[in-house]
């Protein structure tokens, strides 16, 4: 190795370092947040996690078609110095008609539209959904509608997603699936509804 070659080599090191810096975001591929690699190829994905559960007293839902809004906080990895970000996910919990007035039936949806991520809204008035969302509910019951691309979800109908039946069928518009759903349970002792977790996927 002569002096010129050595100098060239020495000069190329920082250049490659800079290139590596440029490519470094791609290393994120090695640790995905979306789902695990098959066969446990690398490490476990760092999935977003719930910050704290959300509770509602059952008295907040005196009758069917009462809807409550909430904001669910989720800790998700972010490529900043802090390494994580608390993202706020707006949600709806809706009481749907049960068999009797004391039968509490709920659906809990993330309000982030599964189509393109806009925030959909509750449309109790069928005239509004007919005028602005191109969908007239046949029985005049409330639905959910997204303002971005006019997808409409019916909480009373089920849709098959990858062999699993989910409530919130897409009755109009381009959405490929029902809204993402919260896991919740009824606490009989304290008469509360506890929302614990959110289905994975999508961008908050």
């Amino acid at each position, binding site marked *: 190795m002569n002096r010129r070659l050595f100098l060239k080599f020495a000069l190329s090191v920082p250049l490659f370092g800079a290139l590596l810096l440029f490519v470094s975001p791609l290393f994120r591929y090695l640790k995905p947040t979306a789902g695990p690699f098959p066969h446990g190829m690398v490490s476990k994905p760092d999935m977003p996690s719930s910050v704290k559960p959300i509770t509602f007293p059952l008295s907040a839902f005196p009758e069917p078609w009462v809807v409550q809004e909430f904001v669910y906080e989720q800790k998700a990895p972010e490529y900043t110095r802090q390494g994580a970000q608390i993202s706020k996910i707006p949600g709806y919990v809706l009481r749907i008609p049960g068999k009797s007035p004391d039968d509490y039936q709920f659906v809990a949806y993330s309000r982030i539209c599964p189509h393109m991520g806009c925030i959909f809204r509750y449309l109790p008035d069928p005239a509004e959904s007919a005028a602005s969302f*191109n969908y007239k509910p046949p029985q005049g019951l409330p639905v959910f509608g997204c303002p*971005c691309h006019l997808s409409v979800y019916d909480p009373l109908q089920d849709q098959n997603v990858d062999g699993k039946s989910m409530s919130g069928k897409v009755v109009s518009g381009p959405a*490929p699936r029902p809204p993402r759903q919260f896991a919740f349970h009824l606490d009989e002792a304290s008469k509360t509804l506890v929302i614990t977790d959110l289905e994975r996927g999508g961008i*908050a």
Partner: protein
Amino acid sequence: MGVNLPFNPPQMLDKAFRYVSDRFAKIDVFDETKTDLQASSPWYQLGSIAYLYWIITVITGLILVAFYIPSTFQAYDSIIAIKENLILGIIRGMHKYGGDAIIIASTLKVYRMWFRAEYKNKGEFAFILAMIILVAAMYSGLTGYLLIWNQRAFWATKIFGTFPTYLDVKAPTEYWFFPKLVGTTTFLLGQYTNQGNNVSQMLLGGASIGQATMTRFFSLHFGISLIALVISELYFYKNRYKRINLPRWSVLTFIGMLLLTTIVLPAEMGSRANPEVTPLPILSDWYFLALYQLLKYMDPYWATIWTVGIPFITIALMFLDFGPERDPWKRPIFTVAAIIGLIDFILFSILIIMNVADINRDPPIWYAQMIVMMTVAELWHYAIYRQIHVWLFFVVPNLLLSGWYFFLYVMPKPAPQGFMNLLYADHPSIVHNTFEFAKHPYFTMWFIYSLLLLGLSLIFMATGSKRQVAQEAKAA
């Protein structure tokens, strides 16, 4: 001398190298080689106009950076402060409208190159570069308008960040070979790499839109122009081209137009971004409106593939136009294809502004419009070249299929009994909807057939017109 082989690798390599270098030699990014034409036609000033507006945008951008705070909490307030200052407000308007002007000029330039067939005779790379410049300008605009942190910006970014995630999911309608291939490839790849989600997270800098997204977009907004500026300066320096090939009065006019727009129509602010409320008519910046409407009409997977694919399809179509004709009136297929693109861009933009999108009614109409216009183009081509195979392979089958399509659209529901039932092919109630429509088995056959015909007739036409020109030359 050596042996004459049917193919000679070194020679082929040499040819390939010459092919590339010939095309690189024909590149002119800002119409620097069109100086003789500029005097007679303003269309040939578009490149210089784009450069002029670009430089204005870079300079005004540098001034704005001094006053802007790239943080989700302070960005909106800092822009209000900029807006309230008279001079800075005008500078911000010039930056915004200058960016829009670059996109307008580059779009018009792409259309000019298409209609005048400037990609012929070794101009392919120049056309591809014009497309790349247009896409880069649009991307720069997208990264720029998030920085305002208003509602429009936030929700446009949400959609921009969400749509790559569809590359991981299974494509919903796989009704013939090519879509099936695309769908299976992305799905299998997605299972191993989660490419869609990871691309989206790299764009946003995390699983949601936040400070990391803003920092990323801020640096990209700079980076695109910075890198392009360095490359274009090297290009001008190496070739010793003049930078702005415009007469002085015309430079002054264009700057005056920009100033006038800024003063008459101050750049809007919108309302502060609120991640919890999406306003009902939510629009993107004007150059993405047509794509927004496409998202309303199409299944999201295919909308993603189309959005990414449009520039590539345009470039592929350019390579198909290999006949010798340059006159737009003598290559009607390609002229009409560009007109369809232009009309749909404008109509889709108008429709989304009016919030008109009926997924159950509109998509078949757009499909029919395309077929009718392409048939007109074929007839036009026949009128020029009198090639009988145009009728045989395209016009007659297309009319038959359009008739069948029309029947599908108006046919009585539910299916009548007897012979007519055969036409329904196990679909008793065809919904007027592209998703449902595309699942129809006759649609599959029809679609494959029309594509085949389109490909065949394109090849016939390109070779046919070549023959025509040769004959004319012989006669003369």
